[in-house]
């Protein structure tokens, strides 16, 4: 696992995507970051299909950062698809969203989200959150063993 694998960021808002990338950069997260702009694209990336057919055989991202409010398939739908598939069942998924609604939190955790981070308006606070995320999920946490490709 010497080579840093990529992180999949699922985010439809270009500004939020740019800010998240900036936060990762400033937190010294060196992994490449792949961007999916809706739920279907995220699943295509993970399961190497559609526009991402060429990824077949490539390893899964080290973690998925998932927005909840997405076009086509929303974040909770993506999470459910990830947990329903044997290949991605153990993939770390962090929900990153504006929503503070209790219902979203409960559904997120009950569908198997590993973490739930709220996007604060203050970028410095966001930076702190991303730093903690990076440290926990990319450095401290030992990922589950890679499974054989499909």
């Amino acid at each position, binding site marked *: 696992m010497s080579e840093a694998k990529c992180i999949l960021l699922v985010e439809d*808002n270009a*500004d*939020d995507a740019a*800010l998240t990338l*900036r936060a990762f950069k400033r937190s010294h997260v060196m992994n490449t970051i792949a961007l999916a702009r809706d739920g279907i694209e995220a699943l295509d990336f993970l399961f190497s299909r559609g526009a991402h057919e060429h990824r077949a055989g490539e390893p899964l991202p080290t973690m998925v950062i998932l927005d*909840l*409010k997405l076009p086509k398939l929303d974040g909770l739908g993506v999470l459910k698809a990830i947990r329903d598939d044997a290949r991605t069942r153990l993939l770390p998924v962090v929900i990153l*969203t*504006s*929503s*503070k*609604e209790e219902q979203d939190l409960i559904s997120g955790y009950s569908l198997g989200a590993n973490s739930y981070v709220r*996007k*604060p*308006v*203050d*970028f*410095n606070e*966001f930076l702190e959150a991303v730093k903690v995320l990076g440290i926990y999920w990319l450095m401290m946490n030992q990922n589950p063993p890679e499974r054989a490709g499909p």
Partner: protein
Amino acid sequence: MKISTKGRVAATTAFLTIALVAGMIWWANDEVGDANERRRETTDLARGLTELRLVTFEYMLHRHERPREQERRVHERLERLIADSPLAGDAQIEALGTLRRRNQEAHRLFLELAATPSVEGTSAKQAEAIRRFEAQVSSRLLILQQESLADAFFLTDFSTERINAAQQRVVLVIIAGLSLNALIAGAATWFIRRDVLSPIARLQQATREVASGDLDYQLHNDSDDEIGETARNFDAMTHSLRTSFRQIERSNQELAALNQEIEAFSYSVSHDLRAPLRSMDGFSLALLEDYGDKLDAEAKDSLQRVRAASQRMGRLIDELLGLSRVTRTELKRGPVNLSEVAREIAESLGHQSPQRHVEWRIEEGMTVHADKSLMQIALQNLLENAWKFTGKTEQAVIRIGMRVVDGAKACFVADNGVGFDMTYADRLFGAFQRLHHENEFSGTGIGLATVQRIIRRHEGKVWVEALPGQGATFFFSLKEPVP
């Protein structure tokens, strides 16, 4: 027929029956009285006859003038009694006639006896003839008197019989009257059961059914009396209840739909309104970080202002959502230890600003019956307020306790901070109302509006006492505090 009409008919019938029976008893009693009078008269007759007999004996023995005179008076009295007797009926009139004839005959014989010359001074033969004549007259007289007495007793017996007959009639009339009344009472009971008690029982059953929630229950009573009308009114009432109930159900559905819309709206606000703010703050910071060396102080200040404004709007959105959530969430009452909640909030405020020294005086054992999460929000706002407005006080003291105000328990949060002029106190609990400038004390002006909503949802009230420069005390009382 109406029940009141039936009642009147029954009452009239009963009254008439009673009047009839009373009349008959009165009449029969009159008969008894009349018969008694007759018997008394016949008894007088018998007594007179007995007296006459005694007088006759006395005269026969002594031949005095006094018994003669007495005989005349008694005879005349008897004549009058017989003449005045109101006795009717063939047998009686015949008996009376016989009595009268015998009486007159007896009187005549008495006069004959009285007219008999004395034996004194007569020859033995003449005396013998006189005595024989006297004996003949006397014996006839006595026989006549004996027969008259028998006639009188016959009349007395007859009167007694009449009395008995009249008394029997009284008994019969009483028995007949009582039977008739019993019959009327029985009929009345049957009618009351059929027309009053059974319909009332059905009405009772119907009220029970409706009370237990069956609004479709109908009586369908078509009788034209008062209960029938009540039953029809009852059916009309359940009908209008059903209509109202359906309207309420519809309104409730509309309200639920509306509530869902508000939920969706709040979700959008929470999610979408914050995104542009993040961009504003984030890219302003990016500019400051990446091009800080190329910007002068004014440009940096402007960017800081953009950031501050974005963050403030973020807080506003959060607090408005909080305010709306306070109104929307379901109230779950239970025992809440306010002392404990206050201590936790005080501790976390202390952690956030460790440089500040505030003396907390929290009364022990303050328990209320309320929604715990809402009371936490309310206390959080009140304590944050007190914390904020004692920020410029040298020896800040915040007291939380309970006190009896106007006979009810009220909780209070008192501080010795900047306070305010009570003139503006009523504006304090409106959303976005502030009594201080933003640059003096930061805040959105939603905190106290949230507190007021929470207290109102608990059917309580919140009020404040304050003096400029001397601090403020916020009070709140809840309905149904658990002692």
